[in-house]
């Protein structure tokens, strides 16, 4: 069992490194991987270095961070809700982000405010982040009062639908241009993050991952349910809050900067469980991170190759996995 995990960890890490280089190689100008590696080590022509460092490296790093973050939060939600189909967006994190962005992108033009492109991109990320943070605060406040975790799940779904309806009303009254920029945001993009924004994105993700590591033992105990976990001395509300905050930092921040990227959070933890055949989060957490990075790098390579939005690719990759999960046990 231990041997299997070691081999898998080695293989997955190697795969991530290879995919990372391939991701740097693919783009509007195809660069042979050997030249990518050369450029990474400061060799090769100036043009190559500019393309690899200034244009593609940030995007590839964003893919790595987003893949890790979304899949960790999926793992956390599945344990917290004891439901294999839970994901980072069931709590309404993406609904909150979408609402913030809709208010900003659709609302500002209605009020006759015109913004420069830079302000628009920064404002979009900020609005999304505030939107998901507001939802988080509401969720944590509710979680204190509502003991039943299934009720929380249903509230999350209702919240998403409610927000969706309000956003649709706003879309109906919006100008074509505002509507387009909102729809493009909902398709997700790893390439719109600037190096400066990465300086904000990266530390927040690292903080979220650190909290996820701190939650490993509580997650293992919560596998047996809250009753048992409490009987073994776990402070349920504190652990639940730790997990919820970690999820919002991870999923909320990625959604803010890259738009809603679906199906990574639901599908990846199951891939990790199937590969590693373990329920121990000391194995599952790193396994989920590596699998998530792999999935999003593959997604980004395909997105660049076929020039498609990332959200459609992750959906097409994730949906068969989810279908497999729900039909397998029958």
């Amino acid at each position: 069992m231990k041997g299997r995990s070691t081999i898998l960890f080695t293989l997955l890490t190697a795969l991530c490194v290879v995919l990372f280089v391939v991701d740097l190689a693919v783009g509007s100008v195809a660069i042979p991987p050997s030249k990518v590696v050369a450029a990474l080590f400061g060799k090769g022509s100036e043009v190559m270095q500019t393309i690899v460092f200034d244009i593609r490296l940030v995007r590839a790093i964003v893919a790595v961070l987003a893949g890790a973050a979304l899949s960790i939060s999926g793992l956390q939600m599945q344990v917290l809700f004891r439901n294999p189909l839970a994901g980072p967006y069931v709590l309404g994190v993406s609904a909150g982000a979408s609402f913030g962005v809709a208010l900003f992108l659709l609302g500002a033009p209605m009020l006759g405010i015109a913004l420069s492109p830079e302000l628009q991109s920064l404002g979009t990320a900020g609005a999304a982040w505030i939107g998901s943070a507001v939802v988080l605060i509401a969720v944590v406040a509710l979680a204190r009062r509502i003991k039943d975790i299934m009720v929380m799940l249903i509230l999350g779904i209702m919240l998403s639908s409610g927000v969706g309806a309000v956003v649709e009303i706003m879309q109906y009254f919006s100008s074509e241009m505002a509507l387009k920029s909102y729809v493009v945001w909902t398709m997700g993009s790893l390439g719109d993050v600037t190096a400066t924004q990465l300086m904000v994105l990266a530390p927040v993700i690292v903080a979220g991952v650190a909290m996820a590591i701190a939650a490993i033992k509580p997650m293992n105990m919560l596998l047996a349910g809250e009753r048992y976990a409490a009987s073994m001395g776990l402070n349920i509300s504190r652990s639940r809050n730790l997990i919820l905050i970690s999820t919002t930092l991870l999923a909320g921040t990625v959604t803010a900067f890259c738009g809603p990227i679906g199906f990574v959070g639901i599908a990846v933890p199951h891939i990790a469980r199937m590969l590693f055949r373990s329920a121990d989060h000391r194995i599952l957490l790193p396994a989920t991170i590596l699998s998530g990075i792999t999935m999003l790098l593959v997604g980004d390579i395909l997105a660049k190759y076929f020039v498609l939005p990332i959200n459609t690719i992750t959906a097409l990759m994730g949906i068969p996995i989810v279908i497999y999960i729900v039909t397998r046990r029958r």
Partner: protein
Amino acid sequence: MIQLENITLSYDTRTILRDVSLHLHAGEFCALVGRNGAGKSTLLHAMTSHRDTRINGTALGEMSAERLAQSVAIVTTERIRIENLLVEDLVAMGRAPYTNWMGHLQDIDREIVGKAIEAVGMGDFVGRDSSSLSDGELQRVMIARAIAQQTPIILLDEPTAFLDIPTRFEVCRLLADLAHNEGKCILFSTHDVDAALPVCDSFAIIENESIQKLPTKQATFEIERIFKR
């Protein structure tokens, strides 16, 4: 060992148990019986959550969660079926109150887990996926988890429900040995009077919002009266 003194318990607005007291001592194997809805689960829950429950003289209200976890282990009616969760790892969960923040098992923890699995006769199942076990096997594993928690008190909610008749007797015998050989105080709710009668030291009988604890010999008549009238 564990005692409730003049406690009233209600569920929503309905009073379930009025002004009840119950004392259990170390090494005592006691069956909790009563009709459906009489308040067996409510009582068991109160024994780990009511602030006036006393364990060795200390009220729960003054006890840290950690201390409580090292004093009382529970086995609920819930069937834990988690894919890929090995029998060994499920039992090792019981070590949680003793391990570090990562839940790292020391050699001594592994030894305790191994012994707990042996004690319930599941030695051959150590590396098996717990979700593939039968109800009876899983119930034994859950008891092993409680043993691994190394608490002087174990509370079980209907541990023999959904088991076939031979397994019911085996589980009762196993719990009796645990109480009598290890000196643990064990209280379990059950409808299975036939399996409990030969091995229990005492019966706590719930009827009309009150609890009466009787030694097994004297309990037979009372139980007959309540359940077979």
